[in-house]
């Protein structure tokens, strides 16, 4: 069973992306990899770099900015392979961002 752990943080409440934070994420990533749980994971550039597109009446509309203007932004993700939700929540709670942001955990659809 695969789960997407989406890391949402409020930049105003987030400690600067310094060495301490990098070390925390490196350590977590190593652990989750060694456990054979991590399928993928990335950090995203800040939301100020986001561009949104949609197609209406066959025309592409391009918008500067994120899809939704919220205080908390999607900052990165881990794709986790776990036995069940309990295991996924355990790993998600250890993501460094969980201490000041929120991790949303969503199961991946399996097309049978």
């Amino acid at each position, binding site marked *: *069973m695969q789960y997407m752990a989406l890391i949402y943080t409020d930049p105003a409440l987030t400690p600067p992306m310094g060495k301490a934070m990098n070390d925390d994420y490196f350590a977590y990533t190593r652990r989750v990899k060694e456990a054979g749980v991590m399928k993928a994971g990335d950090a995203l550039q800040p939301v100020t770099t986001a561009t949104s597109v949609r197609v209406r009446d066959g025309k592409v509309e391009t918008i500067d900015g994120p899809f939704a203007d919220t205080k908390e932004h999607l900052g990165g993700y881990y794709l986790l392979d776990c*036995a*069940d*939700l*309990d295991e996924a*929540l355990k790993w998600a709670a250890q993501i460094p961002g969980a201490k000041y942001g929120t991790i949303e*955990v*969503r*199961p991946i659809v399996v097309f*049978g």
Partner: protein
Amino acid sequence: MIRDTPASTALDKVMREDRGRCLAALIARFGDFQLAEDALQDALAEAARHWDQSGVPDRPLGWLLKVAGRKAVDRLRRRNREGAGAAALAILASDPVEEEAEMIPDQRLRLIFTCCHPALEPKTRVALTLRTLGGLTTSQIARAFLDSEPAMGQRLSRAKAKIAAAAIPFKLPEPEDLAERLNSVLTVVYLIFNAGYTAGPALDRDLCDEAIFLARLLNQLQPATAEVEGALALLLLTHARRAARVLGGASVALADQDRALWDGPMLAEGQALLDRAVARRRSGPFQIKAAIAALHSQHAPDWPQITALYAGLLCHEPTPVVRLNHAVALAESGALQEALERLGALSDALDGYQPFHAARAELLARSGQTTAALVAYERAIALASSPADAAFLTRRRNRNLS
């Protein structure tokens, strides 16, 4: 049931006592909440037909489980033919040879933990627990929580869909999570009890009895656990006073209740459970609440000790309501001024909470602040959730401010 035949009576009895057990066994076997419920429904329909003609079988529960198991397999085969394929096939392939129902272990504890999983909304936990373990119908649950039946039905199906899609496990928590998960379960049981306490016997299924049934079940399935014993003790010590709680349409304060109406054996059972729990030396919020309820049952409540217990409870639950109770206990112990100051600090958080204004009115009246007391009584009466409570508050106001 539609008619009162031996078959329908037997079915009613099995479902009342063992619906949870049936469902738990089916979910353990098939790993699918909705499938288990549908299969059990199929089996009940078949039982209603079959038992009427051929008589009630010797072991009704075993019969139902066996037939429900077959119905579930039928449904999986059909699902498979309709192309929803691989998952259904996997279950069929792993399905063990049909066991004798009597050999199937009691899986209800796992079911309780799944229904009360923290990934579900608290109200959903309550509803799902009542539906699967208490065997209440969707419409009964809807009525208990003043919801419409379609809304409650939707809440239940969304929950079952989430359990399946997100793989909320059907298993006992890891030892390191047990205390927290157990607290979540006991909180659900307590919420059910409180809903029954507020609604009174207005519903056709008494939710207080339902909560006590669940607490007893937990105490049987997870024995020798201090907080489970504490929670059951709390419910029994509270429920034992139910007959004395309302008199002539008005609620009666504890100190004024007719103790002859209290249920002596139930109080004794609660006290014995509490003693056993405390002896385990694993303190927790439910034991503390039970200890407070036990002290309230004494002829002259020991207020300094009740105050100390509320202070202890604040460590577990630092909520405005516990702070309110702590302040009231302080006032009863003689620290009236300090209590009023503490209440003052809660006025924002508890502005819409009737007991807050009622308590504040009492303490203001006691300290001679008549005008402020009158205002607080009016506010409390306006917020009263039942006519009995409003009548009680009006009586208090007239007595204390004349």
